[in-house]
């Protein structure tokens, strides 16, 4: 197992983890502030990917595709907040799960009606399609480096927003004690709307960025939603820092598990056992990680509420 292979897998893990963080940040904010479990968050990610692919096809500009995805999905999020989420805030978690699950059913059929049931392809920006040489014998795809760069930038931006701006203070206040924040005069409906739209935009950003390297299809949101839920459960629901740590952990463990577990097991077991147990263990490694974290820290690594 060479050093470049490990470095490559580490970068892949970082890239995957950062994208998970973009989605997890929105979900954990919405949960922390609105106290809503929004299972339709994955559908916003899907919407972002579809809009980006469509824009890319029409205009050929990747920047336009990302911006368009953010704007359109932000608007979808706004409508969703005004029409449904607002009514679900006062309801129990079961009603919230069902109400937002209904959105999944509707969203999947709507994208199938517009774009058809077959997966949609999104072109990579031509300038980033090739590899970059990071060291003399280590090539890495330029596009994945861009994803890492954007992911890190957004994470930094979110950190500054939450810790250094007035709106960020309100967000933190709302997350740590919603009732107290209300009593202190925070305009809660506006805050709710802003947070939900921000979450939608972040999810769309992840969808647009991952678009060229995944299959864009109905149901893609539900797949990633579960991974994202694992991230925020590990990190502590409602905590931004927890979402970041959880997403990176899941990104690394999942990538490393798939890349190295079968090889590692061969050191200890017969090849037959390793090749059958390896992929299984890799596929469920993040759930084992979650179970272990929960056994020792039932409220996650960084509980948002004391």
């Amino acid at each position, binding site marked *: 197992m060479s050093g470049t292979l490990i470095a490559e897998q580490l970068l892949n893990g970082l890239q995957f983890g950062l994208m998970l963080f973009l989605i997890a940040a929105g979900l954990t904010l919405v949960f922390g502030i609105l106290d809503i479990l929004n299972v339709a968050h994955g559908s916003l990610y899907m919407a972002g990917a579809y809009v980006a692919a469509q824009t890319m096809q029409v205009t050929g500009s990747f920047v336009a595709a990302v911006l368009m995805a953010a704007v359109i999905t932000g608007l979808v999020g706004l409508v969703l907040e005004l029409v449904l989420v607002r009514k679900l805030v006062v309801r129990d978690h079961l009603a919230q799960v069902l*109400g937002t*699950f209904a959105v999944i059913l509707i969203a999947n059929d709507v994208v199938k009606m517009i774009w058809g049931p077959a997966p949609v392809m999104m072109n990579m920006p031509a300038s980033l399609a090739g590899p970059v040489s990071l060291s003399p014998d280590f090539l890495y795809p330029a596009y994945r480096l861009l994803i890492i760069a954007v992911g890190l930038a957004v994470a930094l931006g979110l950190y500054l927003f939450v810790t250094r701006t007035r709106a960020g203070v309100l967000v933190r206040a709302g997350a740590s004690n919603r009732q107290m924040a209300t009593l202190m005069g925070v305009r809660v409906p506006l805050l709710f709307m802003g947070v939900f739209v921000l979450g939608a935009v972040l999810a769309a950003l992840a969808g647009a960025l991952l678009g060229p390297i995944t299959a864009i299809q109905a149901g893609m949101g539900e797949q990633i939603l579960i991974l994202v839920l694992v991230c925020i459960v590990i990190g502590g629901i409602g905590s931004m820092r927890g979402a970041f740590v959880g997403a990176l952990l899941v990104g690394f463990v999942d990538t490393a598990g798939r890349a190295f577990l079968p090889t590692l097991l061969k050191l200890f077991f017969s090849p037959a056992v390793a090749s059958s147990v390896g992929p299984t263990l890799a596929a469920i490694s993040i759930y084992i990680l979650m179970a272990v974290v929960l056994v020792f820290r039932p409220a996650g690594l960084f509980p948002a509420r004391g």
Partner: protein
Amino acid sequence: MTTHSNSPSDYRDGTNVAAVVSPGTAPVPKSHTDGLVHTAASTAPRWITVWLPLGCLLLLALFPLIAPLFDLGFYVSFVRRVLIYALAASSLNFILGYGGMVALGHAAFFGAGAYVVAMLSAQGQSQALVVWPVAMLVAGALALLIGAISLRTRGVYFIMITLAFAQMVFYLFISLRQYGGEDGINLSAPSTLPNLNLSNDTQFYYLVLGIVAASLWLMHCMVNSRFGRALQGIRENETRMQALGYPVLQIKLVAFVFAGALAGLAGALLANHNLFVSPSLMHWTASANLIIMVIVGGIGLRFGGVVGAAVMLLLEEFLRLYTEYWHLPMGVLLLVIVLFAPRGVAGVFLRRST
């Protein structure tokens, strides 16, 4: 319950638990199913609680005899599927409606039961008297494992953790390449039973009807037993039941395992019905569909799971006649129910009649 003894053996019938759970004596914390659970089923008139179900059972028993006369023979198999899903949904209703546990991973137990049948059949064991109990045992053991970890958590964490564990089981079965992996696996033949031929549609129908009716009756007895009363007490106010000395975690875990085993039985029946199993049976959206059935039928109502399964599967069958995009109207309907009829179809019906 005037002595406030800490011993659970202190209570002998449901009345003192009613005192425990009666509203207004102390601030009740927000439960996770509040407003949805209908607790006054006993106030419904007798014709609804006794004669209507018996009438339905009679109709179902006569259905295979009548159906061919009206050229509805095809629907015997359909009704059998509804019955199997009714059992799965009812087992979920037991923990969701009576235990207040919003478990979003019930399809894992359902699918595990189905897979046991398929896997044992691939190994040459298809004797139903062996295979079906094993399916229940495996599903129950899985529920014990998942429940023991996830019941330590509360509220939305519980929802997410049951969901995540179910996904873990889902991926576990996807990675079993020798049993078809993602594509699933066919059964060469249904399970065998002495004196019964499950390849015969009608015989299998009556067997399913008998098993589902017996299971529903068993759940009914459980709900009205001391155990069931304690479970409902926990749903209403867990802290108070804990303070009264009930082993809250154990009671919840037993209910969880019981429901898991019944879901496994339903899965075993479904494997025989479809003669095919695939991991999609336990995808988390399948768990959500089971919850939807319970909500549509009426959460915490004795026949909530049955009504829900019937309504949802009929609707699906009906919508499919007209459009391939049948999820969309289903989603709209679900939204309407969540927003305007939180007690489900049966709940609306009961409210009108009382």
